[in-house]
């Protein structure tokens, strides 16, 4: 419990600031979150969903906690939650896991929420890009919150990138709630390119209505210590979800992806693909569960997790799970841990390609399967380029960002 103390104390210290800088819809949730946070404490590795990441340890250091609301000018369809064009009370903090202490902490301490709101049958001309730039001379913790609402028939591509500018320690605690209305199409891309001293906790919750289609792609290209969860509720018949992710990690990097797809009604489809390339002493973890509620007949679900470990000191934990309470279903999952194919390596070397280059080509090809699932062509091209750079060890700072130059 002691780990929670510094945060509850902090909350009490800055309570007034929080309440004045924020607004009712968020403030209404704070004390409930505080109570639960206090009684739950940080999850330990005995908590099934936190088996591979020690949250208590990650939240232990003393960070300065950022309490600045959004001040910049926001593009079309983006709002500060306090200026929301619709009533967001039914949405805010409604699907985020209230029993997860890390989420509760975010609810307690977030000052602002970025709302992406796409009205009925609207399709923005351009993808919406949200760049999170971590900057500061002191060790800083950021509680970030995003609310995405797509009304019936709306469509959106949202690209979220994480960057860090200075070499300080950063701890990001992000919560995203996304609601995909009937017949809506939502694509979320999250790209992390930070540095070794960054810790990232991201909890994403998605709820889909009838015939909605959501794609969530998570790319951990460079990081320190990362823990992502993605929880999807398929709550309307005919809805479908694609969860894809890739991880490239080396040195002492740690990436833990935890996903949960809930088939709550019949005739829904889910498809999941996560791939990891681990080098040096990197630790990768993937735990994915597909839950099929009683009565959710005609469910179709496929999950695949494939991993490459390049060294003996790299660790991979994988745990693909199925929990099924309906009978008319087709569910499958597969998981592999292995190395680059010796045959393919030899073949390439016989054609005169050096071993390192051959390895690189194969690793790149391995990750390509995930990148290729991205429908947005310019993003796909850019990611191919970045993956290649990353594998060559040339990507240590975020590419193409004005601030870093």
């Amino acid at each position, binding site marked *: 419990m002691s780990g929670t103390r510094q945060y509850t104390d902090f909350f009490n210290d800055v309570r007034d600031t929080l309440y004045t800088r924020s607004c009712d819809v968020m403030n209404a949730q704070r004390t409930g979150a505080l109570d639960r946070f206090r009684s739950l404490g940080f999850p330990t590795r005995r908590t099934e969903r936190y088996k591979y990441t020690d949250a208590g340890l990650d939240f232990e250091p003393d960070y300065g906690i950022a309490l600045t609301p959004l001040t910049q000018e926001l593009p079309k369809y983006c709002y500060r939650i306090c200026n929301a064009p619709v009533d967001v009370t039914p949405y805010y903090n409604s699907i985020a896991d209230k029993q997860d202490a890390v989420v509760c902490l975010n609810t307690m301490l977030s000052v602002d929420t970025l709302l992406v709101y796409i009205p009925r049958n609207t399709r923005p001309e351009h993808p919406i890009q949200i760049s999170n730039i971590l900057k500061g001379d002191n060790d800083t913790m950021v509680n970030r919150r995003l609310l995405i609402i797509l009304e019936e028939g709306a469509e959106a591509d949202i690209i979220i990138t994480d960057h860090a500018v200075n070499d300080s320690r950063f701890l990001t605690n992000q919560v995203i709630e996304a609601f995909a209305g009937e017949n809506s199409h939502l694509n979320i891309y999250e790209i992390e390119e930070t540095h070794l001293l960054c810790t990232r906790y991201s909890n994403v919750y998605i709820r889909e209505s009838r015939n909605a289609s959501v794609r969530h792609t998570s790319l951990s290209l460079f990081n320190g210590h990362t823990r992502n969860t993605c929880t999807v509720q398929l709550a309307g018949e005919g809805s479908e979800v694609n969860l894809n992710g890739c991880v490239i990690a080396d040195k002492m990097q740690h990436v833990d992806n935890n996903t949960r797809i809930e088939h709550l009604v019949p005739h829904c489809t889910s498809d999941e693909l996560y791939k990891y390339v681990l080098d040096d002493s990197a630790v990768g973890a993937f735990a994915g569960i597909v839950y099929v509620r*009683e009565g959710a007949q005609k469910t179709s679900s496929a999950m695949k997790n494939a991993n490459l470990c390049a060294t003996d000191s790299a*660790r991979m934990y994988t*745990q693909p*799970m*199925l929990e099924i309470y309906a009978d008319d279903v087709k569910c499958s999952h*597969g998981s592999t*841990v292995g190395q680059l194919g010796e045959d393919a390596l030899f073949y390439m070397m016989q054609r005169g390609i050096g071993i390192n280059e051959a390895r690189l080509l194969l690793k790149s090809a391995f990750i390509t399967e995930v990148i290729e699932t991205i429908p947005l062509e310019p993003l796909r091209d850019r990611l191919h380029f970045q993956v290649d750079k990353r594998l060559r060890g040339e990507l240590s700072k975020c590419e193409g960002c004005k601030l870093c130059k």
Partner: protein
Amino acid sequence: MEDIARDIVNKDYEYGFTTDVETDVIDKGLSEDVVRLISKKKGEPEWLLEFRLQAYRYWAEQKQPEWGHLNMPVIDYQDISYYADPTKKSKSEDSKEIDPELMKTFDKLGIPLEERMALAGTAVDAVMDSVSVKTTFRDKLKEMGIIFMSISEAVREHPDLVREYLGSVVPYRDNYFAALNSAVFSDGSFVYIPKGVRCPMELSTYFRINARGTGQFERTLIVCDDDGYVSYLEGCTAPMRDENQLHAAIVEIVVKENAEVKYSTVQNWYPGDKNGKGGVLNLVTKRGHLRGANSRLSWTQVETGSAITWKYPSCVLSGDNSQAEFYSVAVTNNFQQADTGTKMIHIGRNTKSTIISKGISAGRSQNSYRGLVKVAPTAQGARNYSSCDSLLLGSKCGAHTFPYMDVKNSSAIVEHEATTSKISEEQLFYCQQRGINTEDAVSLIVNGYAKDVINKLPMEFAVEAQKLLGVSLEGSIG
């Protein structure tokens, strides 16, 4: 489908009868005194009593864990009798005559004792309630230096061997039920295969819970020395009882260099009635230690019975080039719950493991596969392949898959795949069009589905297992 369901009369538990044998049962309850009493009744040496007492003290400090995907009833450990001896206090000390009633029980179960076993080439150690009734065929085995006897006898006749290996694979601190078993185990089988000896026949134990309100805590210890080979069969039944009967067994297997052990189980303990009343709680710790290089161990299990099954026959692959296999069919119907699977711990170099699991759920049952494949940094070149499929019959049951893979070696290859689907209506219809009724069609398709596992069983067991699959699922399609 609805009509079919109505027409089908559920088949009752075929082995539900009790045998009228005088049984020496000690009073219910568990304490140090009870542990001492059990040890005394069995005339055990001091070291064994000490082993039991340590286990008991450890157990008494622990709480029953909440494990797996199970809804476990509260077990009142003080309401169980920890010792029941179905052999009559005999007329003569030297030869314990087998009670004719008991023989009838075995006949009903269809366990062929004595000559029938000789023909089938199987040696049987029958454990009814807690005491080994008779070990057949012992002399012939003795000539080859093979020891096959009840563990109580082994304690008397081969104390050094038992002392060396007992608890060496499953220490009493392993888990709550392992501690309980270590404290109160009443009997079980002991097998020792000497160096270079291939056991020429299948060794077999038949367990049966008979007395009311007794738990069965048998303990099996198999040691297969260098270059040895043995195939061991275990069958289990229990009569119908309303209250849950506890069965907390331990099986320990030690496999040395170049040796091979095959362990097969067909478990059809009483599963409870159609409303989920009664049934055996089957909480078993089974583990094999592949100590020597090139050693091999395979677990094959067909689990159709018990109200609750909790077991993970595991393999610790320490010896280089050792190979382990786990083949499992678990069938649950009505209100049964099964949480079963395996652990493969790769430590030695070039170790290989294979896991094939087939879950079949029907009625309102819950059937989970839970498994762990762990590759230690030392396990260069380790390989694992796992395939875990689930078949669903009916919309009220559940099928779950919880595999864990922890890989800490870059040269390891670990593969896991799983599918869950409904029994195919197309296949059912095809069979029916050929005149095969729904019951038989289900049995046929399920047996086909489970074939990879059934094929691993010795012949006589395979036939029994096939029948059991059909019987266990009767009335499940609807």
